[in-house]
């Protein structure tokens, strides 16, 4: 393709044959014309005529260069994994290889198309820069409210409430807020329009509050039990199965309401059926610190011994236990992408962990006091509360957070806080009320309307609710790696060991044998029993014999190495050594 005559490229509108003709013509006739656009000019004399050939560089040849090449970094973000290496299928099975290749191509295409949609995103992320010589941490909320537009300024507000200390929670679309005061105050409202949905006093202490799948329902962990209220403040359910609950979490894709209790019980409750999935004791004492990992729906609990444990409803033991701090853990949070976990402890440290590889911490920061709350924003800002001071850090994951990005001094001790999804807002609840702080650059500017839509209509919400229930993920799919379901099932080491142990420790088979009826006094009960016993014992012995052979074959390779060690040449003085006890045989 790279080689053309000079006029060859000019015949764009002419027909193909004409084009060829021109090409041929000029192969022999064009002499001496040397436009500068063409590189690689080749001249030679053929049959007494000088022929000049121009070779086009590839760049010039492309009149229609096609779609813009996607930035590989962007592709990496949308990558669906490495893909299958086709070599492993061998050369013979070409049909399978062809199929795999086609599939890989499709996946690549999907990745690329997804990456291309990035240009269509309309909103841009927030940012805050200080004048030279000053720090962004010195900028107060007052300054920010003055600097931003009026609608945004209205988003930063303070509520003085008398029934503190307060717990709070935003809905997944960031539109609604529920507040629960220790002295029984329960209030739900649309915090953007400041429209109050309900405000009641439950006349009991409230330990935690939580939205269910929509803003229509919320759960409150009260003194004894967990109650579910609707938008109007009507009590819908009293969940007596969840008693003395300290912390509530809702897994939106599994429709599970999770709770941790004073007595150390964890429970998962399916809110679509109202049935408990599982409830079991962790045997770790009171669990006050619990959060969910939004990436894999695993619950993370912090304990007074400085450990963090992770729990799924499919196993009554912790799927992971990590010693994070030498002192009690005070707060945990996992970032919305599920990649990072932040823990704080009484040792005044904030530690950042890779939540998918919990072996070692990524970074740690020393604070002046022990932080009581820690929260990630969607854009990975980290907010920590130290008494009545809230500090927000930037770049904690890359390790560049030497100074705080923003600070705020609340009028009471901060009891709970959360970054509002899809907004640059940090909500903090204190002993004395609630305030929302404007933190530029905290939220994801572009939402996906099919996942969480702040502007959802009534009918849209209804439809989304039905669709969400239809795609309710079964609770038995909660694992540390959420992609287990799409992968090849490789037996773990534990499973292999168990399978081996099963071979070694065999049980006698039960033999169900009814002796045939025989004439002439041979079918008396004693005779019958004898015959039965004989058959039974014979068969069992045969089975056990076979099992023994199998076991010995299995163990032979492991014992071989042991015996070799024992076969040292014995010395004369060995007889005075203490005698070894006879080894037990299996």
């Amino acid at each position, binding site marked *: 393709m790279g080689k053309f005559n000079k006029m060859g490229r000019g015949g764009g509108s002419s027909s193909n044959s004409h084009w060829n003709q021109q090409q041929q013509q000029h192969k022999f006739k064009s002499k001496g014309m040397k436009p500068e656009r063409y590189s690689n000019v080749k001249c030679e004399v053929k049959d007494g005529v000088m022929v000049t050939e121009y070779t086009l560089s590839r760049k010039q040849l492309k009149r229609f260069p096609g779609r813009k090449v996607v930035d590989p970094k962007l592709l990496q973000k949308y990558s669906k994994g490495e893909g299958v290496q086709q070599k492993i299928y061998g050369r013979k099975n070409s049909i399978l290889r062809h199929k795999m290749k086609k599939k890989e191509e499709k996946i690549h295409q999907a990745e690329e198309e997804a990456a291309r949609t990035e240009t269509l995103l309309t909103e841009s992320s927030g940012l805050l820069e200080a004048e030279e010589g000053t720090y962004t941490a010195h900028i107060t909320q007052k300054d920010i409210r003055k600097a*931003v537009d009026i609608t945004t300024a209205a988003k930063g507000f303070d509520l003085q409430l008398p029934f503190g200390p307060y717990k709070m929670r935003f809905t997944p679309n960031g539109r609604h807020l529920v507040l629960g005061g220790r002295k029984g105050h329960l209030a739900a409202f649309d915090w953007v329009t400041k429209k109050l949905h309900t405000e009641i006093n439950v006349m009991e202490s409230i330990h935690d509050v939580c939205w269910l799948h929509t803003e229509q329902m919320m759960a409150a962990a009260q003194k004894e039990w967990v109650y579910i209220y609707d938008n109007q403040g009507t009590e819908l359910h009293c969940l007596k199965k969840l008693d003395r609950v300290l912390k509530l979490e809702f897994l939106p894709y599994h429709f599970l309401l999770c709770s941790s209790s004073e007595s150390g019980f964890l429970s998962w409750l399916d809110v679509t059926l109202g049935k408990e999935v599982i409830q079991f004791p962790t045997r770790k004492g009171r669990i006050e610190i619990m959060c969910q990992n939004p990436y894999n729906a695993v619950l993370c609990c912090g304990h007074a011994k400085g450990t963090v444990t992770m729990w799924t409803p499919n196993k009554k033991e912790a799927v992971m236990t990590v010693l994070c701090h030498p002192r009690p853990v005070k707060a945990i949070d996992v970032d919305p992408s*599920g990649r990072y976990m932040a823990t704080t402890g009484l040792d005044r440290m904030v530690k950042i962990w890779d939540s998918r590889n919990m072996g070692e911490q990524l970074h740690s920061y020393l604070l002046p006091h022990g932080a009581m709350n820690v929260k990630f924003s969607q854009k990975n800002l980290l907010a920590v509360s130290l008494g009545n001071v809230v500090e927000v850090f930037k770049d904690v994951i890359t390790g560049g957070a030497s100074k705080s990005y923003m600070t705020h001094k609340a009028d009471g001790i901060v009891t709970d806080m959360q970054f509002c999804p899809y907004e640059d807002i940090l909500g903090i609840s204190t002993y004395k009320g609630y305030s929302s702080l404007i933190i530029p650059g905290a939220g994801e500017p572009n939402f996906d309307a099919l996942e969480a839509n702040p502007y959802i209509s009534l009918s849209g919400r209804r439809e989304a609710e039905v669709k969400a229930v239809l795609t309710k993920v079964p609770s038995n799919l909660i694992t540390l790696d959420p992609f287990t379901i799409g992968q090849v099932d490789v037996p773990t080491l534990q499973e292999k060991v168990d399978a081996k142990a099963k071979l070694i420790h065999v049980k006698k088979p039960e033999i169900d044998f009814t002796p045939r009826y025989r004439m002439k006094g041979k079918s008396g009960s004693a005779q019958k029993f004898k015959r039965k016993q004989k058959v039974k014992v014979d068969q069992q012995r045969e089975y056990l014999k076979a099992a023994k052979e199998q076991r010995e074959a299995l163990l032979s390779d492991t014992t071989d190495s042991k015996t070799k060690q024992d076969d040292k040449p014995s010395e004369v003085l060995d007889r005075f050594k203490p005698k070894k006890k006879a080894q037990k045989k299996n």
Partner: protein
Amino acid sequence: MSIKKINVISRNPDQYLRETKRDIHKVQRNYDPDLHPFEAAREYKLALNAVKLEKVFAKPFIGSLTHTEEVSAISRHPSRLSCIFTGTVDGEVLLWNIATQKRQWQVQGHNGKVWCIVGAPDGNSFFTVGNDKTIKRWSLEDSDLPTDTWLCDTIVTSLTHHRYRQEFVTCGQRVLLWDVGTKAPKTSYDWTTTGDRSDTTTTCVKFSPVQADVFASGDHSNNLVLYDTRAREVKKLKMSMRINSLAWNPMEAFILTAASEDYNVYSFDIRNFDNKGRVVCVHEGHTSAVTDIDYAPTGREFCTASFDKSVRIFRTTEAHSRDVYHGKRMFRVNCVLWSTDNKYILSGSSDHNVRIWKAQASEKMGILAPREKSAKNYNEELKNKFGHFPELRRINHHRHLPKHIYNAKKEHRAIKDAQARKEANRRIHSRPGAVPFIPFQQRSVVGLQDEIPSTSGFSPNQSGGVGGGDEDDEEEDDM
């Protein structure tokens, strides 16, 4: 003021809300994977839903065309997609419109059973074969008299027309090649073989639609014979049981599929007819003799009719049926037809009815909206992706079967197991190599004409054809 630059997320609601109530809702998308967690698990759940919905919508029966007698033959209209011809055992030939489910034309074509109806390739006539030893050609103009009649000396049981030449082949006592213009057969394919009775009746004959000169026949002495009109017989293969019907794959010209009396359907590769690889696939599932077979125009699937009162649909590459259709009042199915638009299956049974079924049991009839279409495609893809998961497989493979089929299936399973056990025992207790392993696909084939030992009388048990279910099949032979 020390703020140099500030930017805060501040959305204008007008950009996110529809302007009027008549507008559609605005849907902003962000394909960032972090905003879409649990991709695999949610897809799995969707796949599960898709499989369940498929079962919910699996209602294949559309309607039935009622006759006055048992239906014995069914055929496509040579030129119209929505019409079919049916023939009954008392000699009536009927033309039906499938769309309206109405009878359009009717004639007393023969005295006695109509054996076979075949559309002519010219598109405006068709042939019928009756028990009265006549072959009749009918014009598609509304006349109640045949345009042509051929008289034969024996009963003709089947007819097949050449793809484009004016020739057809009939079978019965003899296999005859006729020219449409003449009243006497052009060629007779008599090939009395050793051990066969000379009066053996050929039951079915079928021209290949692609290799137009090749045709195949099956007869009462369990032979499957390949012919070429340019030469004589090509190959003669002995089976352990009779072949009731034949069909050629319209897309893969070398695949010939035979419905056998031993409850199975055999796909042959005629390129490998000489060697052991000739049986490509044994399609199992019926619990009684298979009476008729027809291919889908795509060549990917075929349907079979059986004496066990059911119709089964097989994929050409799979040994077990994809679906099974049965009805409470449906009796023995004599003939079956896959419509040319690949949408419907028609089955004629001895309860005086032709039933119309959907080819895909859960398919929605009529025009699909674009969103429906994409949802359907998405569900198909999900089923492909997750179909092998045990939960999905169980739902997808489950078919409700009538009691007689269910019980017969269980019984055959037991018989097969017993035979396998017996053979294994025999192998253990005899000299190594004395009881050879015979692959399942080769069991019901006795051998080619040249391979058969000339002295034997072709009892399947002698020639190593102790196939699964053969012994009990013989009891069912006269059903």
